[in-house]
């Protein structure tokens, strides 16, 4: 009767990271740059692998609270990093917002003011997530009330709805501008909101990854992907 219990326990023990793996949790908007930075790290530290988990910043922090293992954490804003409560986080990049429109600009959108038109289908992030908090800040700075038809939980969903033509306009990160099927309309600097991306580490390998992100090479990769300097 007890042998299968042993088997279950052994199986439960498997699945942890190998000794030479660095686990990194990063906001999903960092998918492109962090994949490249992970390659750079692996080249600089032969024999190690970087396993990056991308997700919504708040989601990742929730997982960490429940005990998920990670050596380094990169969030899309300062507020989420503060919630994670890791020691000495550092800013490593910034990301401003931009309006995106689908091909052909069906809603004839020209600027931020057009987004308050209730006849247009506008999709934004919900204020509970970093990109939504930035959008809300823009609304306040510009003194407009965006007539949103949907408030998504992830910036990728906003991008998806605009690129598929479901929405006339959306507000996403500037780093998302390279995506297929969307063109950007700039938001004036005076009203734009900028998210500061924070990174923190809690062991040696994590700190090495952090150093790679902050290095000249890492910063160049981020700049190439549309991020601003910290």
């Amino acid at each position, binding site marked *: 009767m007890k042998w299968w219990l042993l088997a279950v326990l052994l199986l439960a023990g498997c699945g942890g990271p190998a000794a030479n793996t660095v686990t990194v949790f990063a906001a999903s908007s960092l998918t492109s740059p962090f994949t490249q930075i992970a390659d750079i790290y692996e080249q600089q530290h032969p024999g190690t692998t970087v396993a990056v988990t991308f997700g919504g910043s708040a989601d990742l922090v929730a997982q960490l609270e429940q005990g998920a293992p990670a050596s380094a954490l990169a969030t899309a804003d300062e507020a989420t990093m503060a919630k994670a409560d890791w020691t000495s986080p550092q800013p490593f990049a910034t990301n401003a917002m931009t309006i995106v429109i689908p091909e052909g600009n069906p809603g004839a959108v020209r600027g931020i003011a057009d987004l308050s038109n209730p006849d247009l*289908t506008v999709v934004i992030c919900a204020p509970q997530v970093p990109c939504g908090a930035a959008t809300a800040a823009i609304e306040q700075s510009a003194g407009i009330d965006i007539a949103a038809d949907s408030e998504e939980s992830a910036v990728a969903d906003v991008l998806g709805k605009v690129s598929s033509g479901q929405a006339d306009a959306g507000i996403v990160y500037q780093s998302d501008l390279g995506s297929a099927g969307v063109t950007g309309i700039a938001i004036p600097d005076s009203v734009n909101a900028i998210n500061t991306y924070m990174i923190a580490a809690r062991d040696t390998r994590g700190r090495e990854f952090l150093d790679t992100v902050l290095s000249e090479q890492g910063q160049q990769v981020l700049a190439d992907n549309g991020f601003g300097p910290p």
Partner: protein
Amino acid sequence: MPGGLGALLILAPLVALLTRVDWAALPALLTSPASLAALGLSLRTSALATVACLIVGVPMALVLARSRVRLVAWLRPFVLLPLVLPPVVAGIALLYTFGRRGLLGGTFEALGLQIAFSTTAVVLAQTFVALPLLVLSLESALRTLGPGYEDVAATLGARPTLVLARVTIPTLLPAVVTGAVLAFARALGEFGATITFAGSLQGVTRTLPLEIYLQRETDPDAAVALSLLLVVVAVAVIGLATRRIFPA
């Protein structure tokens, strides 16, 4: 022993949820404007979806169970497809049908009807996923009951419509109620198709599951409170449905 493990697998997460609830803050969390809007919307849309399922599903079940046309047997797997399809796939399919650039979307736009991002889209998504449940439960009841009573009524001189109204539907009523309750429960819990097809806006498309999904980002206590609410509703619904299948 394996049965005990199975029960544990189902009960343990529910117990874990109960231990995580902030009982002191529960009333406030459940009566916040966002929670009430989500609950009201969920109940309204699920009720509408159940009615839609009944209107479409009862005739479908009758045809599937009683028809002798060969083509109907071929159609059966497709009717049950939404049952096994991942909800998000259902949502994508609905989007490419009724969305702005979808197959039928253009026609609806021309008529001035925007379906995506509306409460209609929510009801549509819920109906799509709940319909097979109703059809399946009804069809199996029909097959079990057999055409016996209907044949007797016919030999006694009743016209087909009278047979339907006075014999088929009354004998089917318990199965219809069970099917409707199951469809309601499925519609209430629908998430993937709703968030992909209908979007998420308070009071319009943000049903209870979508509200929980959003709240867990910033307010885990609210998410747990709303989850508990859904569990209680689900248990009540299941209790109601199974009481009719297994009467005491």
